[in-house]
């Protein structure tokens, strides 16, 4: 690949078009930048490089969280202390939660694939505010290192659970302030990304593309971005209040000074419930793109899909107190929050049925991303339906704070979101790196992953139902069989994840070179741009020609008509 010779009298677009006419282009990896070496990455404003930096950082933090999860499951192999004591176990589940939630799954798909892919899906050269985008990455890094720093330098690591409920978080001797400030900074980073994406999707679409011409992945990010903007500030102020309360005794949450700890729980969940939609909506978006591509079909009910995501944002903002059914609330409030919880299942159901309807009479090709999507529909449905069990008032009293909740949450997160993170990784890998991974190894990993999630989390439903409380490091002997199965499941799952990650990272340098539209998808990032893309994403200013999923129709009626 040759360097661009630069004529200062020409715009970069003209230069790129000239090179295109000569039959060559420079990828964004090879383009000459103002800074050299590592600084050409750390100080870049290119959304693709920022997306990749997010990818590597996220994977690093993910592995730390995964290690903590492995240790926790290992501890639960036998009753009583196995490899750690109670205090270490409290710190382990807290740090696992903080790292996985704030550093991995919330930034997750939007920060990596949203940054890299979304502007290309719109036919744009970059996001609306590239420097702000870089700033959000820097804030993310600072927050990440603060969170890790408290793990290493903090004395006793934070042991409050990732929810840091008062009054315990005000009284514990562990290091609370550093991880909370980390969460605050990460929240800021999340807000800036969301703000940037909303403006980008309104202002940067290629000429002729309307809101309802965007691929559903972009729609998922749009819905997510709104939640990032409207929910995250609330956790920001909550964190500041807990920190100040702990440092100066303001009397806002401390019951000894007249504060109300339940109000803190409300403020916490006003953000943290919508936060699960920040996690899942981009995953829904990936799912729509992948299923359409590998069924070769127009997504069934495109507008319903887009609108249902916005409906989830709207209704999802009003369900937070279903985390607090046992905390002390009026019966009327509990009934309303339970009602809204059931209501949010409706748009989610619309999406599940529309995906299935898209598959119907499609020309289905089972690739790794497609396998993940199908597995995700299955696993997420289990997670979603058990969520309704917890959303019903009477059953929640029985199941609150048991392993049932843990199983439900992880079926949603690993079954619905991490699957789609890996689906997105496998789907856009050839786009991002211009190379292809070993699909057999990847498929092996994916199947192992599916088995691992079920073996790990299904026994938790049973023991939770029987009364095993969460966050306990010890248990009665009768629960041991479930804990042993679950721990074995964690080994299967971790092996699967490591297999996939090693396979993918090996292929970044050594994979087979694949330059074009590898999956023959119809969205702009595949059709109009080479892989890996040039600096400004497209060699020529792209033209909006057709909707994102205008695959030729192979339904019986159309074939009849053709005859």
């Amino acid at each position, binding site marked *: 690949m040759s360097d*661009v010779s*630069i004529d*200062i*009298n*020409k*715009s*970069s*677009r003209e230069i790129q078009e000239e090179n295109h006419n000569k039959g060559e282009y420079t990828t964004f990896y090879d*383009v*000459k*930048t*103002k800074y050299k070496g590592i600084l050409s990455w750390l100080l870049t*404003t*290119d959304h693709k490089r920022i997306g990749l930096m997010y990818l590597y950082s996220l994977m690093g933090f993910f592995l730390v969280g995964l290690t903590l999860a492995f240790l926790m499951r290992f501890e639960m192999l036998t009753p009583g202390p196995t490899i750690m004591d109670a205090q270490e176990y409290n710190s382990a589940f807290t740090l696992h939660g903080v790292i996985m939630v704030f550093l991995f799954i919330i930034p997750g798909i939007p920060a990596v694939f949203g940054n890299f892919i979304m502007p290309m899906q719109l036919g744009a*050269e*970059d996001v*609306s*505010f*590239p*420097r*702000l985008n870089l700033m959000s990455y820097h804030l993310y890094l600072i927050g990440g290192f603060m969170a890790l720093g408290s793990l290493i330098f903090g004395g006793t690591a934070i042991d409050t659970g990732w929810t840091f409920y008062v009054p315990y978080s005000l009284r514990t001797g562990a290091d609370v302030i550093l991880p909370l400030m980390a969460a605050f900074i990460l929240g800021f980073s999340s*807000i800036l990304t969301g*703000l*940037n994406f*909303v*403006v980008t999707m*309104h*202002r*940067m679409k290629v*000429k002729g593309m309307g809101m309802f011409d965007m691929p559903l992945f972009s729609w998922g990010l749009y819905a997510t971005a709104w939640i990032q*903007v*409207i*929910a*995250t*500030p*609330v956790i*920001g*102020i*909550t964190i500041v*209040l807990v920190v*100040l309360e702990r440092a*100066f*005794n*303001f*009397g*806002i949450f401390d019951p000894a*000074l*007249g*504060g*109300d700890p339940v*109000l803190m729980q*409300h*403020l916490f969940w*006003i953000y943290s419930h919508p936060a699960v939609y920040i996690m899942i909506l981009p995953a829904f978006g990936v799912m729509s793109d992948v299923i359409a591509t590998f069924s070769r079909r127009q997504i069934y009910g495109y507008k319903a899909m887009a609108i249902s995501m916005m409906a989830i944002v709207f209704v999802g903002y009003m369900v937070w107190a279903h985390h607090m059914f046992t905390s002390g609330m009026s019966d009327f409030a509990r009934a309303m929050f339970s009602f809204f919880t059931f209501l949010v299942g409706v748009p989610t159901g619309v999406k599940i049925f529309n995906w299935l309807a898209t598959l119907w009479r499609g020309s289905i090709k089972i690739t790794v991303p497609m396998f993940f999507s199908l597995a995700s529909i299955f696993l997420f449905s289990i997670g979603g339906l058990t969520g309704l069990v917890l959303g019903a008032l009477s059953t929640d009293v029985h199941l609150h704070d048991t392993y049932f909740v843990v199983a439900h949450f992880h079926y949603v997160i690993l079954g619905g979101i991490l699957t789609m993170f890996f689906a997105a990784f496998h789907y856009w890998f050839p786009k991002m790196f211009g190379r292809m991974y070993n699909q057999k190894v990847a498929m092996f990993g994916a199947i192992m992953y599916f088995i691992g999630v079920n073996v790990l989390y299904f026994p938790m439903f049973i023991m939770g139902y029987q009364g095993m409380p969460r966050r306990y490091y010890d248990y009665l002997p009768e629960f041991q069989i479930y804990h042993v199965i679950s721990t074995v499941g964690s080994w299967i799952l971790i092996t699967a994840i490591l297999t996939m990650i090693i396979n993918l990272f090996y292929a970044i340098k050594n994979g087979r070179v694949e330059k074009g539209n590898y999956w023959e998808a119809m969205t702009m990032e595949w059709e109009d741009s080479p892989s890996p893309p040039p*600096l*400004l994403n497209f060699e020529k200013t792209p033209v909006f020609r057709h909707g994102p999923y205008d695959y030729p129709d192979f339904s019986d009626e159309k074939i009849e008509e053709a005859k």
Partner: protein
Amino acid sequence: MSAVSETHDNHHHDHAGHGYGDNSKLYIHIFRDDLGSKVGMWLFLFTEVLLFGGLFFLYFGYRVADPQAFHDAALNLDVMLGAVNTIVLLTSSLTMVLAIVAIQRDSVKLSLFYLAVTIACALTFLVNKYFEWSAKIHHGIYPGSDHVAEMPQGEISFFGLYYLMTGLHTFHVIVGAIIIAVCMVFIVKKHINKDKYIILENSGLYWHLVDLIWIFLFPLFYLLH
């Protein structure tokens, strides 16, 4: 270093988004979208409103729980100082608008003058706040003090919220004053001029928000007895 501008349809905001080439042939891709910047600023203001929203939510909760304590505690605040600060901030919002109008009409000196007045108002506000807070602290009313600990619980919440909300607001006043000072530098250096004043407009929006929040804080703490 030369820059080549590229015109997009209805995009008129610039950022040095991409630079590539060596230093002798640096190429900067210029892209400008004023409306986009303004939309971004409004979204940011929305997040600010929600940040304070959490505190207003708490104020509402504790006031409903113990209205008598809030009534009693509010009598300790100096309405006069609060009223003066309200007038000062309202004036500063006016001068901010005048500064934007001045730059639109290309009167650089007038614009700088109005911005200087705005900063002066911000400083006046801060000085007032300093005297108000130090009087309170002198009387032993501050979070964690022994005097406060002896108060009824509702009053502890009142003073906790008083320090938090006015404190967070004061922090925003300081940030706003710094932003306006930066705008003045940009005007002198002609980064902000009569064709390109979106930064000043956005700073103005921020300043109005700071003003607006005070408009709510003043009656809630000082006037509602």
